[in-house]
């Protein structure tokens, strides 16, 4: 078996600086390390090597100095190393990088598995892996937390009598917002891994000696048959147009809780803040109702019927109440327009649309879809064009269509197929690719979720266009009409504005909770297209082919230790200050009282006090809850990267110097062991309507 591991050399995140003039990273004086998330990929490759016998080639693109990262991988036990280094490659974006890597993989030759970390801690895009798979035309499984190899599809046998066999199938456990998806795919394939998959080994003296004497192959553009226009800045669809430094400190309120009185005051103040933010209300209409509750109330208000929809789309003019633009469906030749007037189909040449890829979970549309609509509505209005919500699903309910329109979509295009029950990147990408070829959207937005962050880079590679990950701001540039995509980078230490000047569509994933949905208007009218027939025949064949290669076996929802942190409106986190695993119950009790989700710092997860899906920060999850309350977390820069866009941060830490206090809206210098239980008790009492003890009300 031949395994290729792609790695990146990154600067240590806590010391990164950017040059505001050039928009590039100041690398001098920084120690460079192997991207910490790639270490898990290396370790998993080594584990597979030990079990099945394998040759491991480690591959990296970077400056000549990146050879050190490759030698580190060799010292851990990898066999061969290839460094792609050339001035021509400098300044490549993720699209160009994945292209160069793809050429290198082809040159390396036959392989069974490519492993990569889910993303790099500096760029934090996670785009190169899926894009590389797209270039190579192989299946991708992202966010894998476990792998099993089999001799052939479906034969769930282990090593036969301990004798290594040649595996041909990978079964992966993939971490998503809903739980673990179990998928199987054929080799060759590309897998990106999360930290949970393996614990990296340390290089041994023997390994170091091998690594020092081993040859690291160096390939430039010429060796890969690439020209100067194929990589680097000329070969990159995206351009960084602006770099700026966000304000990190929040200048929040600070309380010192050293004694009884201070503790009581702190508990009162936190309680009051939670109350002010509506966290203590138990009625579903409250501001902090869960996404699911939001959906339920929405559907009941909508009271949609099929006739409504038909009538809705017949009235073309009335459908323009958010937008001045004319929306015309594309030529209905191959399309089954479930509801549109013959007259509308004959209107003028359509302006390119703005698309959002709606996010759907097993319970229905996710609220992030409405956030995307809010973003896209502004863009579509600025461009005087229409906004289409694209839904990939086995079938889309009328209420869902109505909701998408109510929240701002001018049209809803449902790609319906039984194949679309679960997210499989290649299958979805194929269908969307075909649709996009047909309708040529100007802009495509998706949520920066495990789905969006896998699908979009795969699609962008197929389109040959740029993609910006995890945007927190989007706007239209005056004059050019280009999409300005602003995102945090380098652990949130800088903000970069990026655009895709010459390629279409312009693509971006958007950080969940970074925008508020519009208030729904259930009088709005829109068009619905149900589109199995939109798929050209050759693409459908392709779809089937790939669908066989990757299939979803099951979905583990609500497994023990799993929490949907990304979707949570309130997160209560604990860190090293809890001292031991058992003390996590203090965090959990408060979270339960509030109806919040439990998070954790890297230290707490590394110590095995709580499982990886709880981890917040650079090597865990990036979240934007309404309330982030953390106790015993010092606020290392890697942790702060994950909570920069939280609306309200409350910190409890006995160390007055802890960096977390500087970014908190309410910083409490005090003992979490005193504060958490009292706060939990206070919240419980308030929720059950029992008046709290007098001594709390100082």
């Amino acid at each position: 078996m031949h395994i290729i591991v792609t790695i990146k050399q990154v600067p240590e995140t806590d010391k990164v600086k950017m040059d505001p003039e050039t928009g590039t990273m100041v690398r001098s004086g920084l120690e460079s390390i192997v991207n910490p998330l790639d270490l898990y990929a290396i370790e998993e490759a080594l584990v597979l090597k030990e079990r099945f016998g394998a040759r491991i080639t480690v591959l990296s693109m970077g400056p000549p100095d990146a050879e050190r990262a490759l030698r580190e991988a060799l010292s851990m036990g990898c066999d061969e190393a290839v460094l792609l280094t050339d001035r021509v490659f400098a300044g490549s974006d993720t699209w160009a990088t994945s292209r160069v890597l793809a050429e290198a993989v082809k040159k390396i030759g036959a392989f069974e598995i490519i492993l990569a970390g889910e993303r790099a801690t500096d760029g934090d895009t996670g785009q190169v892996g899926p894009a590389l798979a797209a270039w190579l035309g192989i299946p991708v499984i992202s966010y894998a937390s476990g792998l099993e190899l089999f001799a052939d599809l479906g034969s769930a046998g282990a090593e036969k009598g301990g004798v290594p066999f040649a595996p041909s199938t990978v079964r992966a456990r993939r971490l998503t917002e809903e739980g673990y998806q179990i998928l199987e795919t054929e080799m060759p394939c590309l897998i990106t891994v999360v930290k949970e998959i393996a614990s990296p080994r340390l290089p041994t003296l023997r390994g170091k000696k091998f690594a020092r004497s081993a040859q690291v192959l160096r390939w430039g553009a010429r060796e890969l048959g690439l020209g100067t226009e194929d990589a680097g800045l000329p070969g990159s669809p995206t351009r960084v147009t602006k770099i700026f430094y966000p304000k990190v400190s929040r200048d929040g309120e600070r309380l010192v809780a050293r004694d009884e009185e201070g503790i009581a005051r702190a508990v009162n103040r936190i309680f009051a803040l939670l109350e002010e933010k509506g966290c203590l209300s138990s009625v579903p209409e409250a501001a902090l109702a869960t996404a699911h509750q939001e959906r339920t109330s929405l559907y009941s208000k909508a009271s949609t019927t099929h006739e409504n929809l038909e009538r809705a789309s017949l009235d073309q003019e009335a459908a323009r109440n958010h937008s001045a633009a004319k929306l015309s469906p594309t030529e209905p030749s191959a399309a089954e327009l479930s509801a549109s007037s013959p007259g509308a189909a004959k209107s003028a040449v359509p302006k390119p649309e703005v698309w959002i890829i709606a996010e759907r979970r097993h319970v229905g549309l996710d609220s992030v879809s409405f956030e995307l609509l809010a973003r896209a509505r502004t863009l579509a209005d600025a461009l005087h064009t229409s906004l289409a919500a694209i839904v990939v699903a086995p079938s889309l309910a009328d209420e869902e269509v109505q909701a998408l329109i109510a929240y701002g979509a001018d049209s809803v295009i449902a790609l319906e197929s039984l194949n679309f029950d679960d997210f499989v990147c290649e299958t979805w990408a194929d269908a969307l690719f075909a649709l996009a070829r047909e309708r040529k959207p100007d802009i495509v937005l998706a949520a920066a979720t495990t789905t969006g962050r896998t699908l979009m880079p795969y699609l962008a590679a197929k389109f040959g266009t740029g993609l910006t990950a995890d945007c927190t701001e989007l706007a239209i540039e005056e004059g050019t009409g280009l999409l300005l995509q602003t995102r945090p980078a380098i652990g949130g230490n800088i903000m970069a504005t990026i655009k895709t000047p010459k390629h279409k569509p312009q693509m971006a994933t958007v950080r969940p909770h970074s925008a508020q949905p519009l208030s729904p208007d259930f009088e709005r009218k829109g068009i619905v297209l149900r589109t199995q027939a939109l798929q050209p025949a050759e693409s459908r064949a392709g779809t089937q082919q790939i669908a066989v290669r990757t299939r979803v076996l099951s979905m583990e929802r609500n497994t023990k230790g799993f929490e949907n942190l990304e979707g949570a409106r309130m997160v209560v986190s604990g860190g090293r200050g809890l001292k031991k695993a058992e003390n996590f119950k203090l965090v959990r009790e408060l979270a339960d009282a509030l109806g919040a989700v439990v998070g954790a710092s890297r230290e707490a997860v590394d110590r095995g006090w709580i499982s990886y899906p709880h981890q917040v920060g650079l090597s865990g999850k990036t979240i934007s809850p309404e309330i982030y309350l953390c106790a015993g977390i010092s606020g290392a820069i890697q942790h702060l990267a994950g909570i920069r866009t939280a609306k309200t941060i409350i910190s409890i830490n006995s160390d007055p110097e802890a960096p977390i206090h500087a970014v908190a809206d309410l910083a409490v210098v005090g003992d979490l062991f005193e504060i958490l239980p009292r706060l939990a008790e206070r919240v419980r009492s308030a929720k059950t309507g029992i008046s709290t003890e007098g001594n709390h009300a100082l």
Partner: protein
Amino acid sequence: MLYNRVTEEIIRELAVIAGARNVLLDPAKLEAYSHDETSKEEYAHMPEVVVTPESTVAVAAIVKLANRAHIPLTPRGAGSGLSGGAIPVFGGIVISLEKMNHVREIDYENLTMTVETGIVTNEINNLVKDKGLFYAGYPMSLETCMLGGNIAENAGGGKAIKYGVTSRYILGLEFVTPAGDIVWLGGKLAKDVTGYDLVHLIVGSEGTLGIATAAIIKLIGLPAAKSDLLVLFRSPQEAISCVPVILSKGLIPTAIEFMDRRSVETSCAYLNENLPYAQCGAMLLIEMDGRDPALVESEAEAVGDLCMEQGAIEVYVADNRTTQERLWAIRRNIAEAFKVYCPVQSLEDIVVPPASIPAVIPELDRIAAQFGITIPCYGHAGDGNLHATLVKDPEMSMEDWHRIEPQALEALYEAISKLGGKISGEHGIGLKRKEYMKRFMSPVELELLKAIKRAWDPNLIMNPGKMFDLEKGIG
């Protein structure tokens, strides 16, 4: 002879000398000055007043006042000591140097720095790092401790085998004598035999001879490269036997840290570290540093080879910060890991001839078994300075602990004395170990110490009740 109490009149005088804002009387604020890092309930004692002077002149005036009025005076830095040295056992005045933290001069020609002793030691290195320099005399508790405390205790730390201890880097002192006189001792001199070496008498005197208000410290070139080795051995004997082999080859590691099996297991379990330590009886953590990365790498490799020749099970190499942090985390978290097991402990810093370390381990096991406690052993193998830590069984009552702790300590000190060791290598005697000085120091030597004390501080006002007792009580 009796000490006097701090009166209203004294407080008024202190306010005149140091300014009213620098005189603390609020019991809530005084509490912070009543203890150090030793067990609060065993050793803490409240001061009557705390003064935070901002100049040497003010310090001298306060000392003069205390000397005249026979009021006990306890100098204090960051309060991170481990011997009770900064605890005002007789009450009186605590003189905290926290506001005397200015850098007076950085002399790049002579590679010295003149700083007030209230500076946080870690700050010194932040200030000169960009110039490629560093102050090598800093101990392990580098984030909080102050230079003044390091000087008082002659702090050591993990890098002593290559860089020595604090005293090597103290070239001169601005010193306030117990009579309240200000004097400069030493200077920017590499050699100085002009009279007794008073600078190095004061370094390590635990604040009993006077107060060092500023120091001329020596700076050296910052080693740019370092490489760490974590070496797994089957037994402590095998681990320790490597140390002279390495040193005799002219290889001088920056640190050779020893961890016994119990320390490794507890720390690794606490950190969830998955190193294969199952067959490991002891570990060494060896750090090489230097200017040239290639040279450091080759020296580290040579050290690793020697360890393998001596029977090491495995050698892990860390030459970047990520892996280095991971290795050092094991060593640094031992104390914290045992605190989670049981917070009641007595952290010792015995020192033995380096070759005697293997012989210490069975003694520790014997004492632990005898008293029903746990004694992990880790520390600086290169210089024989071990943190044998007495850890209470979580089930044991505090009553029993208080009964057996002195007996166990006695047994420990007895054992290490027989091995040619001493009771403290870097933490100092202070309050905590003075009773054992009588037993483990020859009467002649002890009397020489006392004679110096009486000669310098006839009224016995400077940090009384530390290191040894002299005839004086509370008035």
